Structures are given as structure tokens and as C-alpha cells.
């Protein structure tokens, strides 16, 4: 399977580990990611705050560049913000004729053109879940992540703005949960899994920015997670690089490493830590990684537990939709 690949500015440097581990695990799964030629910054949330047409023209330039690659009509972005910008741009070009008109004029000034709808933008997680599948991932696992309690953190952008793909419920997605379970890890029913990390708020207002980070880290700690697994470089930066500053601000002492889901997959596939960029986190992940394989998971008993005679408790509601494996495990333990 071949896809066009849009790394985004973050994956170039501050989250190079995400880029490296993405390439490593996709290679291990037989996927080829072809970086699009001469891509530019997607503008993050900054550009569209000051310009509308220029912001979408800038994003459309990437789509136009991607469209040049023959035979590749699917563009994969590991960064949630890039994914959102690319998707949203394509959607607005398809649905807003006046904007589409202006953007195509702008692109033409640079000698480019883009036919809205011709590139399908995907997030890397979505590609692994839908096109590869959990079973294929489990089959590739040589070193199950037994003993690790992971908090799956989706962040806000991947599942929300109406661009959602199957299984990305905006409030309670379970694809990353299931992916981590497929690697053999124990997944925590993390209540903040779709809460925002604050984006650039640390630079606008420390109080607000750090509070958002604190909530996420505290939530993971309260649920006894060993690490937070993330799918977005901004989230990783905020939770990892700013964890120390946040600790100082609130006089707290959290130490929750934050890793990319591709890194976890790489570890489970038995790949080298260097190939996955492990060690580049500011909150040291090594003590956590040393836990792998030490504790074996406790098997969940089959069927409903027997009720004691004097048990007055009321039954929990039975779920009518698919729930996260963590929620099921919690229920079985009850």
C-alpha cells in the first residue's frame, strides 16, 4: 500500500520522533509513505486567525503538490492539526464556491491548480485502523506491552469537526484504545481522552495553558497510567516538554512520560529504540518502558460475576454501542 505523506513542520524537528517512528512502523507493516514534494506549512491555527483566503490558499498549495504525484490520491498526515487543516480546506473548497474561486485564482498565480475532492486526506491512525486493521497489527507484535498501563490521548482535532471517519466518535473514540490493546497493553479509561491540550495557549496565557496541561497529566496520574499515548505532535510537546514548567507552576511533581502511538507500536514490533526516537522525550520514558513484560495481564473472568446474597447494589446499564476495551475490563472487574 502506498500513500502520499505530509509530515508537517512539527515532525521535521520538535517531533522528529513521530516522523521516524511512523516511517519505521509503516515499513514494518508493508506500507510505503511517499513524502509530497516541497510541501509548505499548513498554517496550524495561526494563519487562519489573520487571513482567510491566504490561509486556505496556503493549505491548498499542499493539496496541489500532492495531486501532482501520479496514482496517489490518498494523503496521510500524522499530525492532527495538519490533518484537520488539509481536510477542512478540501471540504470548504468543495462546498464554498466563492472561497474555491478565490483560492484557485491564488494558486494559479503560483502556477498551480487543485481540483477539490481529488485528494482524500487521512490521519495516520485512521489508515492503520481501517486499512491495516487491529488483527494485522497484533500479528506483527513480537514483544507484547504487558505490564504497561496506557492512557490513550486523542486530543481534540482528530475526531471532532464533522470530518470524522468511522469509529472516531467525537466524544468517546475507541480506535486508539483498541490499537493499544492490540499491542498487549492495559488501557486505562482515560476521562480526558478528547480534551484539548491547549495548543499554543502556553504562549498566550501561562495560567490557562498550564492548567489545561495539568488537568491532562493529573487525569492520567489519577487513573494510574504509566504513560500517555498521543497522536499529535502539539499534544506531545505540551504534555511532555512543558510538563516540567507545569510542575513548577503548580508546585507538583508529576512524572508521566508522553509517547507517540507509533513509538508504542514500534516497541511492540521489536524495533530498536533509536529507530523510534525514544529518548527524545523531556520526561524520561525509560523507567516506564522497563516495566514491559514484567507483569503479566490478569485474565478477565468469563461471563457476569456472581452476585452475593446481601448485595444491594443496582445493576449498571448495559451498553448498546461498542465500548472501549478499558471500559469493558472495568465493568468485568465490578
Amino acid at each position, binding site marked *: 500500500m502506498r500513500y502520499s505523506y505530509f509530515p508537517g*513542520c512539527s515532525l*521535521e*524537528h*520538535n*517531533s*522528529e520522533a513521530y516522523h521516524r517512528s511512523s516511517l519505521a512502523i509503516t515499513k514494518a507493516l508493508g506500507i510505503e509513505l511517499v513524502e509530497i514534494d*516541497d*510541501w*509548505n*506549512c499548513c*498554517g496550524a*491555527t*495561526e*494563519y*487562519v*486567525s*489573520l*487571513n*482567510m*483566503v491566504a490561509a*486556505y*490558499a*496556503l493549505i491548498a*498549495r499542499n493539496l496541489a503538490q500532492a495531486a501532482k504525484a501520479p496514482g496517489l490520491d490518498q494523503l496521510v498526515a500524522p499530525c492532527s492539526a495538519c490533518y484537520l487543516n488539509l481536510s477542512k480546506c478540501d471540504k*470548504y473548497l468543495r*462546498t*464554498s464556491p466563492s472561497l474555491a474561486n*478565490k*483560492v484557485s*485564482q*491564488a*494558486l*494559479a*498565480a*503560483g502556477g*498551480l491548480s487543485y481540483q477539490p475532492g481529488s485528494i482524500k486526506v487521512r490521519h495516520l491512525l485512521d489508515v492503520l485502523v481501517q486499512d491495516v486493521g487491529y488483527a494485522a497489527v497484533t500479528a506483527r507484535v513480537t514483544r507484547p506491552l504487558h505490564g504497561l498501563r496506557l492512557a490513550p490521548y486523542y486530543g481534540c*482535532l482528530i475526531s*471532532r*469537526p*464533522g470530518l470524522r471517519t468511522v469509529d472516531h466518535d*467525537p466524544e468517546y473514540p475507541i480506535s486508539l484504545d483498541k490499537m493499544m490493546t492490540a499491542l498487549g497493553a492495559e488501557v486505562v479509561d482515560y476521562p480526558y481522552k478528547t*480534551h*484539548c491540550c*491547549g*495548543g*499554543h495557549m502556553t*504562549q*498566550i*496565557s*501561562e*495560567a*490557562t495553558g498550564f492548567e489545561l496541561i495539568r488537568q491532562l497529566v493529573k487525569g492520567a496520574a489519577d487513573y494510574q497510567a504509566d504513560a500517555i499515548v498521543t497522536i499529535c505532535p502539539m499534544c506531545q510537546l505540551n504534555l511532555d*516538554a*512543558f510538563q*516540567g*514548567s507545569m510542575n*513548577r507552576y503548580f508546585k507538583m511533581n508529576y512524572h508521566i512520560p508522553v509517547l507517540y502511538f507509533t513509538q508504542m507500536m514500534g516497541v511492540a514490533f521489536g524495533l530498536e529504540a533509536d529507530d523510534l526516537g525514544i529518548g*527524545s*522525550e*523531556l520526561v524520561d520514558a525509560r523507567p516506564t518502558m522497563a516495566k514491559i513484560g514484567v507483569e503479566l495481564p490478569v485474565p478477565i473472568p468469563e461471563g457476569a460475576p456472581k452476585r452475593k446474597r446481601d448485595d444491594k447494589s443496582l445493576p449498571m446499564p448495559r451498553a448498546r454501542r461498542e465500548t472501549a476495551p478499558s471500559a469493558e475490563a472495568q465493568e468485568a472487574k465490578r
Partner: protein
Amino acid sequence: MVDQAIRQSRPFTFLDEVQNRTPGESRLLMCIQCGTCGGSCPSGADMEHTPRHIFAMIRADMREDVLKSNTPWYCVSCYYCTVRCPQDVHITEIMYTLKRMAVEAKLYDDPTAPDFSKVFINWVENYGRAFELGLMSQHMLRHNPMGVFKMADMGFGMVTKGRMAFTPKRIRGIAGFKKIIAKAKELEAVHEI
């Protein structure tokens, strides 16, 4: 459709201005003031006016108060509000519109956020890529000089872990890129009804 029908029936107001300058259909008029957005917003507690309040103010034609407020600048674009809104108001898009209008009218009270965006954009427009070190240093020196010291060890950590680029990277097609941006900005100035 709703926006269009309303536009035809009364004189042009601040509300119309906001709706026109938001791509797609904003549905601002459909707001029932339920407060889901304000309740869901991660930075809602720190905003001067919650998003819901801002919409009431827009409908009351309070242009200056709205464009001066810190609300759009505290929006983290997490889209919780947009997804949960029972009336499908495209809140986050409206926030972007308010940011643009506030900068154009130079009405924002606190320049921290607009300046951050401006510095970011400056690097992108000259190189085609974002340049974090440039962005952070320029921004902090101007708006949070003490932060330079406070975040020194974080910066140090980023450098030692190889996560900090020291020079900006320029894309090959920067010339064409600049032409695209220039043309786009020229077209931006035309707001259609």
C-alpha cells in the same frame, strides 16, 4: 440558506458582517443561548465573555465590545463547542472570523495572541515553513521576557534532545509560494455580500 434569507430582509449589521466573512454557513442566528459552548470550552473560565455571550453581543450589534474582548484569542480551536452545539452553530469558525476582524479593526485589548500569530505567519510567509526558535524568541522577548528564564531548562531540554532547529528551512518553490500568498491577500480584501 437561513443566512441568505435574513440578509435580504433588513439593513446590514455587525451580525451580517460576521456571517458573511465566515466560510460556509455559520448559523449564528440559530443560537438558542443554551450555554453548551461556554460550558464545554476548556479555556471558557478564562474568557471575558463566554462564546454564547459573545453571540448575544453580536446579535445586539455590540461591535466594539465583541472585537475588543479576549474571547476569540483564548479559543484553542478544540471544536468541542461546534460538535456539541444543539443548533449546529459553527462556533470555532466564527471565532476565527472574529480574530480576523479584531486585527483588521485593531480593536483587541491584549496583543499577546495576535502578535504570536503575526510572528508565526511572518516566518511562514518568508520561508514556507514554521520556525519555532524564531517564533518563541521573538514572542517571548516581547511579551514574556521573564518566561525566557523560566523556560530555560525546557529550551535546554529541547536542544539537547535534538528537537530544536537553529535555522529556518526554506522551501524550494518559495517564489511561487509568495505569489500565491500575495494574490490571495489581494482577493481577501473583497468581501462579498
